[in-house]
């Protein structure tokens, strides 16, 4: 495999990766091939510009936030391990994993971790609370200029009112996961809902 000729950190990647991220060998190959094709500078890391070169991502209203999720705090480059780590959140949970050893650390793509990923898209300052401002920011990104401030404000207020349980006018992670429609993450599939967990 190509990366075995790479740096030492990349060499140690393969064994750890298979165990920790629980993705198959061929999935790693495909992801690595995708990683290198995005890495125009050929220095083994991706920058934000590399992501923004993907047109379908650049036109996504939440594109910048999603890109942010790949970069650890304060860093501007992500290596392949980090790239895979973020993507591993989205792997569907296989049936045979549900009965795994309960003492093992929770896999990245568990329901909780998926929800945490979504929570962190809202919670920009990482204070474990979604404030009204943070909610407004995300709403503004999704609707652009098409909805007035007042309307957006009332949507935000309603959402917080419904979710907030301890009265601090913001949504903590525990309140987030109890929000009715997130009990299971439903996805509309044309004529019925599918469970995304």
């Amino acid at each position, binding site marked *: 495999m190509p990366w075995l000729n790479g740096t030492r950190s990349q060499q140690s990647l393969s064994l750890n990766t298979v165990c920790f991220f629980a993705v198959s060998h061929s999935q790693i190959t495909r992801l690595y091939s995708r990683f290198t094709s995005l890495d125009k500078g050929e220095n083994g890391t991706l920058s934000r510009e590399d992501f923004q070169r993907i047109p379908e991502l650049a036109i*996504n209203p939440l594109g910048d936030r*999603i890109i942010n999720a790949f970069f650890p705090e304060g860093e501007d480059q992500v290596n392949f391990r980090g790239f895979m780590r973020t993507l591993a959140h989205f792997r569907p949970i296989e049936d045979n994993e549900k009965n795994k050893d309960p003492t093992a650390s929770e896999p990245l793509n568990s329901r909780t971790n998926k929800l945490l990923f979504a929570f962190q898209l809202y919670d920009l300052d990482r204070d474990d609370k979604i404030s009204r401002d943070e909610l407004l920011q995300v709403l503004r990104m999704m609707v652009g200029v098409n909805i007035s401030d007042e309307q957006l404000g009332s949507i935000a207020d309603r959402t917080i009112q419904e979710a907030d349980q301890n009265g601090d006018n913001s949504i903590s992670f525990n309140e987030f996961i109890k929000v009715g429609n997130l009990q299971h993450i439903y996805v509309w*599939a044309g004529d019925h809902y599918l469970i995304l967990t």
Partner: protein
Amino acid sequence: MGLFLDFNPFDNLLCILLGISFTVWFTLLLVFIIVPAIFGVSFGIRQLYMKTLLKIFEWATHRIERGAKDNNHLFVSDGNRDLDHASEFEMSDIFYFCRQGVESIMDDEVTKRFSAEELESWNLLTRSNYNFQHISLRLTVLWGLGVVIRYGFLLPLRVTLAFTGVGLLVVLTSIIGFLPNGRMKNFLSEQVHLMCYRICVRALTAIITYHDSENKPKNGGICVANHTSPIDVIILASDGCYAMVGQIHGGLMGVIQKSMVKACPHIWFERSEVKDRHLVAKRLSDHVEDKTKLPILIFPEGTCINNTSVMMFKKGSFEIGSTVYPVAIKYDPRFGDAFWNSSQFGMVNYLLRMMSSWAIVCSVWYLPPMTREEGEDAVQFANRVKAAIARQGGLVDLLWDGGLKRGKVKDTFKEEQQKLYSKMLVGTQEDRSRS
């Protein structure tokens, strides 16, 4: 002194041998390649070559373990959040955008069109060797043999032919330029162009299959085709005569362009004129109205795409209002990838790669002519033609602009997405205030 005298007869013998082999070599070249090119006939040598290669590739493929290409997507890739059915804002709405975003990071439709297509099996060229490792000694030997044949035998042959073809083109068209305008000149110019392009075709060992030749472009029309590489021009022009459109370059290209235009009217623009869209449109429509002039050849994508898809056609050529003759060109990537990745290699490097591949195998389909219909604007017409070409060539029809190879995507697309989502939310608010 004695030693020196001993070598003399051998020296002579060596010279004679070299002389004979060169003569034989050139005679063979002339008989088997150049003469057929002049008359447009074929001995079928290239077809035989292609069949042999295919058999070898099949054998090589059996030897390579095809790792099960794991097509598991890392997602539940089913069901879209149908925005019409949702009503109010929910916190889980971000999952819709989130999933689309992460899916596009994993694989998107656009960026992969600007690099060479990945092959299912290896065709014994190092350049297309992505994930295949050393499998067996026999395969490596075969590969080594391939290198020797391609670089030692085929490449010099092809380079000789290329120089011959281009040289003849420049010289003969300049000569024809001295003739007075008239039928004789046009006839000779056509023959000369065809002959030189055929020699160039053999210089690339291009094995081309033309389909539906009854739809070939006629005078006063515009021929549009999908663009994969500069070789497209040679492929089309060896089967018919076209007026080329393009920018005047310097150097060798400029010399070729200037001499070509002496023999028959091509449309070359100065660099400064290219920006002026009205000027370009005017010159094109003037040319098209003159029925004695040859059909214009245009590549509306504006840039080279890797032959797996057809990207947005620029509407300029579709506004002129003449008959459009669409042509679909599909290359067979097993013999050599024809895509020119201009950010990766320059023209000379690219041509060398082409000449050291096994062959260029492609199919050309001449599609029935199309004209703009009532009430159809240029953009819709362009999309209709594009769809026809994509369907015929088995390519993916994309709406994305080929200019994304180098430039950023416009913000208007993002604003459209935001508008759609807002409509869903606002619609609810209005209902709520009514009830």
